[in-house]
């Protein structure tokens, strides 16, 4: 990589992007307060909320206009995903949007694409390639009839009459123990290298959107902790005036701010120059996973014993931060991949 390349460093949002952010910020704030999040536990799915969100056009916004979409880019999608995360919203937005983009990218049959884009029920994506035909844990499979998976050399849309059995989990997401052998239909979307590269691109999209959601989650966790620290007193002073409280929260702010910009940059590059810095996705994702783990832990902790209770919203953020960040497996393997890429480039 050329460390002296003359690139713009413009992180500002244009007015369309500001509008997208604001619209979804308002939507989630209104429709998905923490009471809604709690009511959807443990499954982590509010079908009515999802239906409203589909009504906002979220499932098609990033499709080309020719396919009924709005040509939104990954940059807009990460803005939406952050707002989702900021409300810990119980909707399968990320895997569904990524799946629909994948169907469009591989030129899936228009009927298949349109049905998926309709969003009801959502489509799930198996984040790890299938090994044999044994059941696998698949995010959102507990609420989806259709699951897209890389199976050997083929990218396949598996159809089932019923969603997979729900497995209760740390982050209250609609995790299913999904059995490819139980599928009643099987549509091959691509095969050979095209299948693998389409899958990897989709996995990259998923990681970027999940990174954004994790940062939204961490931002709200931080905001909650800051409010607590402003008002709670110990030894006659607000706890937030103590460096032992303020400095760890400042570190969360530092982490969140850098992580957000790194995600934006990775999304922009992924959209406009996907070959230029492919490792940025892995960096944005692994970094967000770490920032979220630490940030939500710190934010819950700074609320003392209260932050450890299920009544505190801090608990929602803490559990989801870890619960979302390992759905695609160990995020540290992304670091290994980054290191390997650098060493190969140098070798």
């Amino acid at each position, binding site marked *: 990589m050329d460390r002296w390349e003359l690139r713009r460093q413009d992180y500002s949002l244009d007015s369309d992007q500001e509008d997208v952010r604001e619209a979804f910020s308002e939507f989630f704030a209104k429709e998905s307060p923490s009471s809604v999040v709690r009511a959807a536990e443990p499954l982590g799915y509010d079908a009515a909320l999802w239906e409203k969100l589909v009504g906002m056009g979220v499932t098609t916004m990033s499709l080309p206009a020719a396919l009924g979409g709005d040509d939104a880019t990954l940059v807009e999608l990460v803005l939406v995903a952050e707002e989702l995360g900021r409300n810990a919203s119980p909707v399968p937005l990320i895997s569904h949007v990524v799946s629909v983009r994948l169907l469009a990218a591989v030129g899936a049959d228009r009927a298949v694409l349109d049905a998926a884009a309709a969003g009801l029920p959502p489509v799930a994506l198996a984040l790890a390639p299938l090994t044999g035909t044994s059941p696998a844990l698949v995010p959102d499979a507990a609420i989806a009839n259709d699951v897209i998976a890389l199976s050997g050399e083929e990218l396949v849309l598996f159809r089932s009459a019923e969603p997979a059995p729900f497995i209760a989990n740390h982050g209250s997401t609609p995790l299913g123990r999904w059995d490819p052998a139980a599928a009643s239909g099987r549509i091959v979307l691509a095969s050979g290298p095209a299948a693998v590269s389409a899958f990897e691109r989709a996995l990259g999209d998923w990681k970027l959107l999940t990174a954004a959601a994790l940062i939204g989650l961490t931002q709200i966790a931080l905001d909650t902790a800051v409010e607590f620290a402003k008002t709670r007193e110990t030894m006659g*002073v607000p706890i937030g005036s103590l460096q032992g409280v303020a400095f760890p929260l400042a570190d969360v702010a530092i982490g969140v701010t850098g992580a957000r910009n790194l995600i934006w940059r990775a999304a922009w590059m992924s959209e406009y120059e996907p070959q230029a810095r492919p490792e940025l996705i892995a960096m944005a994702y692994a970094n967000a996973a770490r920032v979220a783990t630490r940030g939500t832990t710190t934010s819950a902790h700074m609320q003392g014993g209260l932050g450890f209770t299920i009544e505190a919203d801090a608990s929602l953020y803490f559990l989801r931060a870890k619960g979302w960040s390992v759905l695609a497996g160990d995020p540290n393997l992304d670091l290994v991949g980054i290191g390997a890429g650098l060493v190969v480039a140098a070798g």
Partner: protein
Amino acid sequence: MDFSVLQLTAEQEQFAKEVQAFLDDIVTDEVHERELETGDGFSATVHLALGERGWLYPTWPVEHGGAGLDAVSARILDLELHRRQVPDITAGTTALVWSAVERYLDSAEVDTMRLDVARGHVRFCLGYTEPDGGSDIAAAKVRAVRDGDEWVLNGSKIFTTGAQSCQYTFLITRTDPTLPKHKGMTMFLVPLDAPGVEIQGIRAFSGERTNIVYYSDARISDKFRLGAVNAGWAVLHGPLDAEHSIGGEESGLDDISVGRSFLRVLERALDAAVDWTAAAVRPDGTKVADDRSALQRIGRVATDLEAGIRTPGPLGRVAGSEALVRGSADLVDLVGIEALVSLGDRAGSELGAVEYGHRFAQGTATYGGTVEVFRNIISQHVLGLPQMNYPGRKVFLAPGRSDAMAAAR
């Protein structure tokens, strides 16, 4: 320095067998299932069965309801209870409070109560923290107002863990708001069945239950006052210092780290993750056991665990919590999606220990004072750093403890 394996006498060998057989009998699956469901930190059947044998306070003399055990036998029993994950929070709080009760309650009452405590029929919880008070115990606002031979209590306490399983709470109250913060407090042993006392459960995301206890014109007899009126801070200090400082009495037998029990949770999570690693195959067909990046992280967690176990007193309290918080998160990462499956949905797999560990970990940074409270103690009493003169300055330790802390260095 001596880290050798203990050589047991024939009697001790026999005792160990007896303990195992007894616990096999009383610590049933049902005990653990009930604990998972309620988060009580207490099993009445086990507690009473142990009390029956004098094994709640096993080194107490037999005539006081103990079993008169030697230190080695007591250690054998203690390890077996930990190994079987016997819910022990209420046993712990009862032990902390008893030292103050024994010293300050009317001696006739003490004599009556001692056997009930030893047998497990009388149990105590801690009424320190208030809903808006955080770790600043000396800011207590629950009011106690004298009315003849009685006191009238009003206010509420939070994190009175185990109240639902106890007969009394060890309550710090404000009896004179006109005096300086630490001078206007009085301690009571409050019967939890008194009218006007209401217990409301709160669940932590670890599954543990704690409580808010509300006092609404609750009336208690003056005989339940511990120590002089307005001298409550001194009464509190025995149990508080015990909670804040070195656990073992330098017996050369006991674990030296106050955080040892947290680290047992990390041990279980690590062992489960290691077993998983030994067998796991990734989607690309490679074995996790061949991935040196995974092995390095296992090595790191195992090392932090070992260092935590070796860190004494309140320093070990912080080291243990930090090792668990960080290590449990690392182990969830390592195992990935399979680590997310809830303990209850796991049908016997050991991996639940990883998921549980990550939830449980967070409370250990708060129990008995946050890690920040302990860092303050270490800063002042181990390092001798100056104390900030906050408007409502807190005294963490009685003066006498400083020397013990410095000695722990």
